[in-house]
Structures are given as C-alpha cells and as structure tokens.
C-alpha cells in the first residue's frame, strides 16, 4: 500500500452538472451506486478520456491525465454490452490489447489463451462473437479488459444487459478477478456493490451524497436516497447449513451462487420490502421471526421505513403508512420482524473480512 491513492478524481462536467471528488486506493474496488442519469457513467467517461471535464483534475498514480488520449491512460472500460470486435475471434479479441501495446503475435495469443482459461471460456477461443451467448461474450470481454493490464479497471453496469440466470455467475467471476485489483464499478444494484466493492459512493444528481465502507453504507444508509436504493438488511455471522447465526439472531436463507461451507463466515441479505412487522409472533410458513425493538420510524413518501434492532443488529422494514397507523408503532415498541427464507440470499463472507478466519480453524 502506498500513501498516495492510485486515482484522484476531482472534476466537474458542467454540461451534465456532475461535480464530485473521489479517491481510489491501490487494490481497492469502489462502487458508484445511484439511479440512471445520476452521472455515474459520466465520471467513467472522464476517467477513460472520452469526455473532457470542464474544470478540475484527474490523476492516476500521480500523473495528471489532462490532455492524455484514451489509449495512453492504461484505463480499461468494461461496458454493459460486451462490444467484442465482431470480425475477430474470442482469442483475437483478448489479444487485441497486448498486440496494441506492441506484444508479438504469439506472445499476445499465449497470454490471451491464459486469460480465457481464467474466466472459464478457454474452450471458446476460436468462436466469433456472434457464436457466443451473452454471458460467454461478457466473460470474453472481462478477459479482454484484464489482458490489457490496466492500472485502473472501469466497469459500467457489467451485469445489466445479462439474463438474470447468468448474471450471478458473472458476478461471482468478477468478485474473483476484482480481488486486489483497482477498479470502479458503476451499478444501480446494491447487491453488486455488496459483493464486488470495498467501498461505496452513492451518487445522486451529479453529487456524491454518501460514501463509506460497503457494509456501513448498505446496512446503515444515512441519506433517505441511499436508504431507498441501497438500504439492505445485512446479517453477518456463521453459516450452519440452513441459517446465518449472528449477534443474538439467526436468519434462515438460501445460499446464492457463491455458497459458503457450513461453519464459514457468511452474510444474509434481504430487502426491507421483504420484511413484515407483527405485534405478536404469528404461526405459519415464514422461517424467520426476529424479535426486535423499534428504534425509529422514517417516512418515505407513502411508506414508512421502520428501523429496529434485533439482538445487536440494525434491521429495517418497509411498510405502508396505513400499517404503521394500524399497529400504532412508536419507537421502543417490541415487534416481530417476519421474513420468508426464500427472500434471504446468503453469500460467503465479504471480501473485507475474508481471510480473517482461516477455514481450518473454524470449528463445527
């Protein structure tokens, strides 16, 4: 770790009213989280050299990027669509960056083959882009971006154009390749931020409204806006095969594409909209009935966000104003938070805490 951050972004694009300041440390992945039109992609465009800021500066490893053309920035961009060159095979696509840098044909191809293997599509090297599925093409695009050995990798909603059934596998892949790499991920999906980023900056109307470590921003958003798009319930603890046992509570859920082994650290994720609030514990099918204490009631348009603590863990439920009135909720009330296990996705421990516990020391 060096003292100076790898990227310092402090610039304004007046035409789109985007002004923000952002730093990315070496080896860190930062998520820019925000709705469409918030200015996230504008920031990526400025960093990649496709847009000129009207004022301010962008520095990469201490080098001012003003006036530096895109091909000399060592910043690779992975977009929503794979944009593989249609006239080149998958292998030639991946070899394009190294070839452009001046590598010889055979060296570039050898390297490209390794990258294709690492992203799991080594057997598709000779295919043309039109012979690949969306998920396969995006994997090749990931390999192509990484083969260029960028100092900084920019990902602009890399899962947005994929079918829902292949997105998790790509997310899993990105989670692996982004570890230790310096990257910025633009997304409007809180789950992408949770699984890919060390840090989150929430962007609204061209400004950063909130930033901090991913788990903090996602579980305890301070701005109403961040709460609306990012307010996820996160319960971390130990996975016992059917539930995550955390600080005084246990949450049953379904393991995701990246399942933890029993005994491993894990996090249970569920949306506030999946949580119902009951005065008394109900019978019935929902697996999770969490005894909690209401701490705060926050109006969100026609709904209320009910903040509560279960054990030591802050949780949120989103309910209608009518329900709050009917239950006559006030802070301090004991309630039961009900969540169906099918609404809870369980992921292996976050990268920030991964490695804290070696697997062989974890008891049954």
């Amino acid at each position, binding site marked *: 770790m060096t003292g100076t951050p790898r990227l310092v972004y402090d610039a304004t694009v007046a035409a789109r009213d985007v002004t923000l300041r952002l730093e990315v440390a070496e080896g860190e992945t930062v998520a820019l989280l925000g709705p469409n039109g918030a200015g996230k992609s504008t920031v990526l465009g400025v960093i990649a*050299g496709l847009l000129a800021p009207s004022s301010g500066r962008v520095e990469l490893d201490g080098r001012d990027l003003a006036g530096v053309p895109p*091909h000399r920035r*060592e910043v690779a961009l992975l977009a929503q669509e794979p944009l593989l060159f249609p006239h080149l095979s998958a292998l030639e696509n991946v070899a394009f960056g190294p070839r*452009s840098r001046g590598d010889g044909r055979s060296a570039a191809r050898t390297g490209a083959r390794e990258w294709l293997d690492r992203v799991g599509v080594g057997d598709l090297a000779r295919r043309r882009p039109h012979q690949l599925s969306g998920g396969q093409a995006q994997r090749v695009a990931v390999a192509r971006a990484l083969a*260029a050995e960028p100092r900084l990798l920019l990902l602009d909603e890399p899962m947005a154009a994929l079918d829902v059934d292949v997105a998790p596998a790509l997310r899993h892949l990105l989670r692996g390749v982004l570890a230790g790499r310096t990257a910025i991920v633009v997304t409007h999906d809180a789950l992408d931020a949770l699984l890919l980023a060390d840090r989150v900056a929430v962007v609204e109307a061209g400004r950063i409204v909130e930033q901090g470590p991913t788990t903090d921003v996602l579980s305890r958003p301070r701005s109403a806006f961040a709460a609306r798009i990012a307010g996820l319930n996160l319960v971390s603890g130990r996975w016992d095969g059917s539930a995550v046992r955390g600080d005084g509570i246990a949450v049953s859920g379904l393991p995701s594409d990246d399942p933890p082994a029993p005994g491993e650290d894990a996090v249970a994720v569920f949306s506030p909209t999946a949580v119902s609030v009951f005065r008394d514990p109900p019978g019935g099918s929902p697996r999770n009935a969490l005894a909690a204490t209401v701490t705060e009631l926050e109006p969100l348009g026609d709904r209320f966000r009910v903040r509560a603590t279960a054990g030591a863990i802050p949780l949120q439920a989103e309910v209608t104003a009518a329900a709050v009135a009917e239950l006559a909720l006030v802070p301090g009330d004991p309630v039961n938070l009900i969540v169906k296990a099918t609404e809870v996705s369980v992921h292996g421990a976050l990268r920030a805490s991964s490695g804290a516990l070696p697997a062989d020391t974890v008891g049954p």
Partner: protein
Amino acid sequence: MTSRTVALPRWLYVPAALGGAFVLLPLVAMVTRVDWSGFGDLITSDSARDALWLSLRTAACSTVLCVVLGVPMAAVLARTDVRGIGLVRSLVLLPLVIPPVVSGIALLYTFGRRGLLGHTLDVLGIEVAFTTAAVVMAQTFVSLPFLVISLEGAMRTAGQRYEVVAATLGAAPSTVFRRVTLPLVLPGLLSGAVLAFARSLGEFGATITFAGSLQGTTATLPIQIYLERVTDPDAAVALSLVLVVVAVLVIGVARTGRSAP
C-alpha cells in the same frame, strides 16, 4: 420475422409495373437489334478491343484512386463534428448532381493547358488533357462521391463504440483505424468500390470533354459507341450489349458481396 406483412394497395402495382417496363423494354429492344451473325467480328474489331481494354484499365485505375482518396474523405466526414462540415459534405458530393459535361469543363479549366494549374503542370513538363491520365481523372472525379457517400453511411451506422473500446485497450488511432474501423465497414467499402467502378465504366460526358476521343488513348467504350452510332450502327449496338453484360456482372458481384456474412 413474420411471413405476413401488411398488404400493399393493389393500384400501386400498375405504376410499379409501368416503371419496370420502362426500364427493361429499351434493353430488350436493343437486344432485338443485335446483328448476331456479325456479332463476333463487331466486338473483336481493333477499335472495339482497344475501347474495351481502355475502359477496363481506366475504370480499375480510377476505382483504386477512389478508394485511396475516398476512404480518408469518408472517415473525416463521418467522424468530424465541426460547424460547416455539412456544407463541405454537400460540396464534395457535387459531382453526383452536376452534368458530367460540366465536370469535364471544370477539369479542363483546372488541369488543361490554359487552366488554373495548367501553367504549373506545363513547367513541370506534365500534360494532362487529352491523355489516358485525363480519362482516369474524369472518371475519378465523377465516381468519387459514390464511394464516399456509401462508405460514410457505413461508418456512421457502425458508430464509434468499438473504436472507443479499442482505444481504452491501448490502441493508438492508426491501429484503431486499421484493425477496427476499416474491417467493420468492409462491406460498405466493397459496395462503394463496385459502384465507383460501374460509374467509371459508364463515364462519357466528362471524359469526352476533358480527354477527347482518340482511339486507344482516350476513346473508352461509351465514347466508341457514341462515335460508331452514326457510321456503324450495328457495331454500336453490339458494343452496347457488351457494356450491358459487364454492368450486369458488376451488379452480380456487388450483390453476392453484400449478402455474404
């Protein structure tokens, strides 16, 4: 793709058929006038062979020139975003709409002995007007817009997204142009080149004005046909048929090129 489409109004077929007949009937009429017994002799006479060979050579040369000059022109027009580029585009495409004989006169007053550059060329010992080079220049002048307009459209359709990706992967502008831009518009370039070749092959007005009609030097096939029309109508018709066959072949090549993946 559905096989059923919204039906056309029936009356539309009448003017459509009339238009088709208007185009095809003269060709049929010409074929009926061909003197088949002397056909072989007519199209293998010295003057006819000279004219055909000259036409093919000059049209090939001007097509090459069109590609060499037209590809950069199309790229600049498609990728430049400054005020006035629209006007530049209209002016560059002017040869499409001005009468070829006017193009010939303009060339004559530029490169002819008394033209704008005539004195300069004279000092350099270069004489252009009424040479085979003049034929190529006249053909290039009128054909260039066909290639530029077809290629510029292809470049605009292809967009810049792939070029942006290539740049972020570290490719310098020349590499992007050579390895991404050109391969992506190759079909447009091919059809543009075929159009330019066909237009060059049929060039008449600008050529006869700027280059004259000397057998073997500047008398291309269309000019030869025009000259023989009075003295030897049978030869004119036979040579016309040759030109039609060449044109049909060109269209065939262009169509297979376009339908290929």
